[in-house]
């Protein structure tokens, strides 16, 4: 009997809950994200600092020691499971200069691999912006993210990795920075700005301004200081991502997108080297041709002397 009562009361209670939640906006939709942040061996100081910057911005992240392998990336799945993470942000460094960033949803995909360029860490960029450690960012996506399926996947993965979930353990209750993701030139440009609320410039009524200043100090709950304007100050870091490949699984599975515009940095370097070598080869060839031509025309020094017999040494011997 008690069990029946319990179940009944529970159902009714849950129903009531659901109603309230529906009005509030759905509590059962829990956004639980944890990100495992780690790098491979052989990263440069800049890669490492960028990793630290990102880790500082993600209170739901867990930084781990360097991962030893570059071929067996599927082992990261187990590692993530070990740490209770459902996202992996993996920095793979190649040749001590190229950085590839892997974003992966761990249990069952997808995985996006990017080539990261133009890295600038927070410290080396002398920007004046600053924000709370662990405050939830506003994620600003370019309109282009909605156009292509692969960009939509990328956007969703960014939302999971960079978006701090509501009520994350170490997150702060205020919102003071924006992360911008823009698509330009086939690449994704990532920026981070502080939101600064400034007095509106054209505020003609001083008294009104003062009032609003007090209001903001008094920590209003309803839409209070409407007249403060927003300005952005960059914080850093900056980096540019070129999508290379999207896999269906987590560090595995069939490839569902491949960027044909991506050219590997190795190839670019090789091309440069070849171009440089080509100049030398061309010059040598020209020289050889010239010699051959001269020989054909009988303009070589020795032959000329013999042929004409007009050399001073011969004439006045």
């Amino acid at each position, binding site marked *: 009997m008690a069990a029946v009562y319990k179940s009944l009361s529970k159902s009714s209670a849950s129903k009531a809950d659901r109603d309230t939640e529906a009005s*509030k*906006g*759905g509590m059962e*939709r829990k*956004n639980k994200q944890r990100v495992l942040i780690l790098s491979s061996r052989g990263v440069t100081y800049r890669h490492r600092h960028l990793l630290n910057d990102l880790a500082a911005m993600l209170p739901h992240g867990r930084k781990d020691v360097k991962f030893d392998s570059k071929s067996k990336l599927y082992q990261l799945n187990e590692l993530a499971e070990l740490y209770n993470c459902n996202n992996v942000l993996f920095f793979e460094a190649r040749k001590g200069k190229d950085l590839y960033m892997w974003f992966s*949803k761990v249990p069952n*995909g*997808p995985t996006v691999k990017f080539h990261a360029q133009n890295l600038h860490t*927070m410290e080396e960029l002398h920007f*004046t912006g*600053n*924000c*709370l*450690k662990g405050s939830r*960012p*506003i*994620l*600003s*996506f*370019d*309109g*282009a*993210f*909605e*156009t292509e*399926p692969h960009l*939509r*996947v990328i*956007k*969703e993965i960014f*939302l999971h990795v960079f*978006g701090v979930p*509501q009520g994350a353990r170490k997150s702060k*209750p*205020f*919102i003071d920075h924006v*992360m*911008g993701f*823009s*698509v*330009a*030139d086939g690449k994704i440009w990532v*920026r981070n*700005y502080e*939101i600064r*609320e400034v007095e509106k410039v054209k505020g003609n009524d001083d008294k009104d301004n003062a009032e609003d200043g007090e209001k*903001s*100090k008094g*920590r209003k*709950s309803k*839409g209070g200081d409407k007249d403060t304007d*927003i300005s*952005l100050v960059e914080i850093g870091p900056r980096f540019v991502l070129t999508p290379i490949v999207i896999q*269906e699984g987590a560090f595995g599975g*069939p*490839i*569902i*997108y*491949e960027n*044909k515009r991506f050219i590997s940095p190795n190839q670019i370097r090789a091309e440069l080297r070849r171009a440089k070598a080509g100049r030398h080869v061309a010059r040598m060839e020209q020289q050889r041709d010239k010699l051959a031509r001269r020989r054909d025309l009988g303009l070589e020094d020795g032959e000329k002397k013999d042929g004409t017999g007009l050399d001073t040494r011969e004439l006045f011997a």
Partner: protein
Amino acid sequence: MAKKGATQSPKAGSKLKSAVPDHKPKTKKIDRRKSNELAAPKAVDKEDEWEDEDSDDHEEPAPKVNGSKTAKRPAEDADSSEEDSDSEGSEDDEEHGGIDLAAIDDSDSESELDSDEETERNDGKGDRGEEKEDSEDEEDEEDEKEIDVDELSAEDEEDEEQIAAGTRVRQTINNKEGLLAALRRFALDTNPKTVPFAFHQSVVSSKKTEESIPSIEDDLQRELAFVNQSLEAARQARALLRKEGVPFTRPTDYFAETVRSDETMQKVKAKLVEEATAKKAAAEARKQRDLKKFGKQVQVQKLQERAKQKRETLDKINLLKRKRQEGGSAALGTTEADDIFDVAVDKELSNSKSSSKKRGAAGDGPNPKRQKKDTKYGFGGKKRFAKSGDAVSAGDLSGFSAKRMKSGGFAAGGAGGKKKGVKAPRPGKSRRKAMAGKR
């Protein structure tokens, strides 16, 4: 479809040969040979083999049709063999003489280079290409139906080889269905009707940022576009969050750890200050430089002016002098005009050499400096007895002091009787002389 007979370019033929699995055509050929021998024993030739491969090519993508084709084949073969039998009887005989099937297989690509056949081939090339395209279209359709990445990649490779023979382009995989399926699997619900904004806090801007960037190389324009995108998002987000009653602004008395440490911010500040001072110093230096340049100009101008003035006066003098000389030589009797002129010359001269002459003219003595020195050191007059006393000096008692008199220093010393303790002041010159005379 294979009616054309020998209509394939040798290159394509060899390619097909490599593409088709080896064992399959061989066995078929053997079959065919048998049938041909049955139908018309003389009719086996290269043409048939070409046909054979053509049909194989079409069979590959759609193996289901295989049965019907094979059923049709004997009839076709018979037709073609009838057509060609007269022209190539000799070759056939040779081949049949030694029934070496492997040899035939090898030969079919090389021995085709007979002249009459080549012309035919050239004629039929265009048609052949069209047929190929058709077959590819069929393949594409199949791909779209069943999305299999392996198959896709295989087909793509073939395409690459045919289309861009020289330039190596990356394979393009863009499996939209797969992408969308993957997206559906892990996407968060961000529908604004069902989910509050604070849940995800992501804003997708309405327009593409790339459109507002005129040139990707232009850093300023590009960053401005990015900032504008984020600014718009921030405004929108703030409005939405306020509507939902989520705290947005950090109160001024809320202190917590920040992303960038205080040291870093200090460094940033120091750098800013340094930059500002450097700028200021540079501006100052530039100003100074300009001023200097200007000052120099002024000085030069002044010097020039002075030189000009001098030149003018000298000219004037010379002119006057000359005129005077002329006047003097011409007329001995001085006219009134000459007198006036003389006065004018004097005036001019006095004007031009005013500075040096004026001083001399003003005093009646020889030279003010001399005069001054004369007053100081004396010049002229008697020097003797200048320092000797007279009635006035004797009457002057300003140097006398009763106190001193009483102390007796002077008098005692003068008397010669020495008192202990008090040092006698040095006597005057005359006294000293007198004392010297006494000794």
